[in-house]
């Protein structure tokens, strides 16, 4: 570009922002409100996701072995389990260890098993599942497959827990997505309206630019940047307000969540995405208005 590229558009955008300051302040305020809601739900969503992930990390599957297997047969089963997709860790639990563990859990009520002539518990493998596989259907399929292995007596896992967990995942993921789309459309709408107001107030100038041979890109460039800057400013303001409120609330308030750190604030990557994403939505809003106006 020979002389009037991005810098010219940015300078013109700043001029536009200054000349319509009242409209733009209102736009920034409205965008902030929308982004504040986005940010609030992001905090809830991300913390919920962390909690769900922590639950997923604790999801285990017990593979009980038949009696009388040789060490070689046991190793072979362990090897096959390890090869299953979604298996994170496989630990061996001998029947002796299992009984000790059981006794520990029955502390104070050991009398319950004192009458037993021999150890009724089988050898087993404790399989830790990757949390991305913590899906009820996948787990059921995996359990069904492992139970068919030669030498495996039974497979057990928290079936109900897995079902609840995968349901939770879906609600959080789809709900978050729907909310993001809804609020995204709102931001585009707000920006397109404020850019439209700016366009009407500079209609005479735009008409003249068309008469003297300005291309569509030359005319719309500053307005697109203006929309982008408004949205980025609004998003940054929302993040600032959110952070202020978040850190002003005493930590004790979050203790009911029984998490060591209570709630986490948005990670820097999410904050960056919110501001850049807001900017892109602003660009889209500007594009909608300018296209309509120039037609």
């Amino acid at each position: 570009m020979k002389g009037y590229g991005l810098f010219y558009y940015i300078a013109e955008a700043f001029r536009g922002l200054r000349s319509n300051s009242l409209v733009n302040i209102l736009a920034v305020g409205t965008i902030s409100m929308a982004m504040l809601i986005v940010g609030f739900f992001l905090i809830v969503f991300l913390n919920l996701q962390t909690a769900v992930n922590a639950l997923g990390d604790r999801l285990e599957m017990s593979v009980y072995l038949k009696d009388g297997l040789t060490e070689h047969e046991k190793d072979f089963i362990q090897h096959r389990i390890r090869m299953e997709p979604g298996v994170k860790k496989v630990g061996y639990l001998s029947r002796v260890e299992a009984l000790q563990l059981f006794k520990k859990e029955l502390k104070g009520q050991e009398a319950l098993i004192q009458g037993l002539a021999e150890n009724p518990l089988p050898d087993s493998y404790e399989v830790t599942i990757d949390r991305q596989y913590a899906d009820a259907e996948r787990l059921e399929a995996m359990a069904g497959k492992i139970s068919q292995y030669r030498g495996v007596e039974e497979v057990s896992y928290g079936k109900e827990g897995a079902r609840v967990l995968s349901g939770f995942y879906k609600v959080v993921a789809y709900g978050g997505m729907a909310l993001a789309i809804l609020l995204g459309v709102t931001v585009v709408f707000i920006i397109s309206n404020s850019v439209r107001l700016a366009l009407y107030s500079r209609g005479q100038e735009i008409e003249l630019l068309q008469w003297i041979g300005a291309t569509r890109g030359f005319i719309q460039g500053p307005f697109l940047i203006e929309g982008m800057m408004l949205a980025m400013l609004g998003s940054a303001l929302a993040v600032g307000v959110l952070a202020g409120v978040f850190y002003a609330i005493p930590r004790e308030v979050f203790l009911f969540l029984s998490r060591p750190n209570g709630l986490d604030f948005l990670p820097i990557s999410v904050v960056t995405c919110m501001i850049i994403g807001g900017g892109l939505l602003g660009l889209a809003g500007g594009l909608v208005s300018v296209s309509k106006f120039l037609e």
Partner: protein
Amino acid sequence: MIQLYRVTKYYEGVPALREVSFTVDKGEFVFVTGPSGAGKSTLLKILFCAEHADEGRIVMQGINTFRLKAATIPYLRRNIGFVFQDYKLLPHKTVSENIALALKVVGTPAGEIEQRVYQVLKKVGMETKRHLTPPKLSGGEQQKVAVARALVNEPQVLLADEPTGNLDPQSAQEVFRLFKDINMKGTTVLVATHDWETVRKMQRRIITMEGGKVIDNGGQSPQKPTLAPLNPQAGAAGTKPAKKEP
């Protein structure tokens, strides 16, 4: 340079132009006159691609504008200067800034702008008022600035629609004198006006219109202008190519 063949334009079914045909040669100075509603402004708007003809053929500088795509129109306009009756100057910008805008639009390097603005203002005798905004100028001065803006990109054609309609006789004379000087330097000038007095004094070709028709095309055969070969995308040989930046 400018060729029209049976150009017709309707507004809501009512013809504003009816089979208008004429040719303007390179370097010519032509007046289009006629009473209000004769179709002069519509004709100029069609030449400037601000309106679309419903029928006929229009060739500007070797380009068939009848079939021109919307995205190409800005590049055609850069080779045509247009002077409006109401000047169309931006009131919050200074005289210099108003003219600089026309240079920025075509991507003139920033370092050249100041000098070119000064030169063109000197040409119209307005260099001393370059820091003023249009509301501080008289009508005649504002029109001189508008002429300067139309000329700053050195167009091959200058179109003017009632350029003296809002001016006192002395200012009108000055503006016409400017047009004459511009034409002497090779620019084709087409002026729509109903200022008969000035038109007669200037002794140039006169195309007379009435009711959307050309009733006298100033000495040329009305229905048979010689049309150059059409090339909708490129300028004809010898014409300056449209500037493509930015």
